[in-house]
């Protein structure tokens, strides 16, 4: 099954999320209150490593393992990045999770977070419904 490799990537990710305690609501509170360097350290390291590794792919002209050329689509800015971004920030501080950690919180046994996740699916759906009427 060609998608199983992505399950494995996710699995490692889930372990990292939990073992670095990034799924913790408290870690997010420390971050938003500027009382711990931890999450900023994770973010800066991840961006640095990401930048170096993706730049290597570009500079060396690497292809995928299947031999396709690698394409990185450009992001088109719109007002939603700010309005939606701030709304997401509200939800991030409330739930203590961006979408990735929500999945991980469920895995750690906080089954009530399935309600948050379901609610996030509803939120996404409502965005899809109202999309044409929202400023972009």
């Amino acid at each position, binding site marked *: 099954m060609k998608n199983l490799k992505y399950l494995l990537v996710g699995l490692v990710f889930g372990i990292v999320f939990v*073992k670095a305690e990034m799924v913790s609501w408290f870690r997010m509170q420390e971050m938003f209150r500027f009382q711990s360097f931890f999450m900023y350290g994770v973010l800066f390291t*991840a961006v640095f490593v990401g930048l170096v590794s993706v730049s290597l792919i570009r500079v060396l002209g690497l292809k995928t393992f299947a031999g396709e050329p690698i394409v990185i689509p450009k992001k088109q800015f719109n007002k939603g990045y700010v309005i939606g*971004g701030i709304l997401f920030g509200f939800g991030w501080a409330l739930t203590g999770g961006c979408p990735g950690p929500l999945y991980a919180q469920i895995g750690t046994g906080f089954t*009530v977070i399935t309600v948050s996740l379901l609610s996030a*699916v509803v939120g996404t759906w409502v965005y899809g419904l109202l999309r044409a009427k929202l400023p972009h």
Partner: protein
Amino acid sequence: MLETLKAPWPWYVAGTLIGLTPAILLLLGNKLFGLSSSLRHICAAVVPAKIPFFQYNWKAEAWNLFLVAGIVIGAFIANTFLSNPETIRIADTTVQELQAEGITDFNALMPADIFSWRGLFTLRGFIFIVVGGFLVGFGTRYAGGCTSGHGITGLATLQWPSLVAIISFLIGGMAMTHLLLPYLLAL
């Protein structure tokens, strides 16, 4: 070895492993790392309801659902087999402030005061669990991505719109934490 794995992992280990993910997914199959898209694919698969935003071949994006399913399993494995025997260490100032705002349980990754099935049926629990979840789903899609898609992939590929997005995420999170949270926690 197992002791080291069981202790909380330092930020540079987590940051390095997460930072490698965009490159790994590009090499594995030209996939763009982002986790909030999974929510859109779930909508497209389950309740597309003729909404144009959900009319696309979600099966071609099924890899993303495998990725998030992996996260649930990985989190379960970490929590079951690599669990840290000690309680989470939180910055003293954060503990003091949250105690003053009404949190009493600091023993788990999440405050059980709020995030429990019993808590769900209180006004406070409803706001944190349900309204919070809704804002995560609505906001990330409106913003075209979340902390992974913009924060890691976007910045790693040097796209300025992603920088604007991540700054907006942090502004929203800080505004909620400093302005509204004390009142919501007191509910």
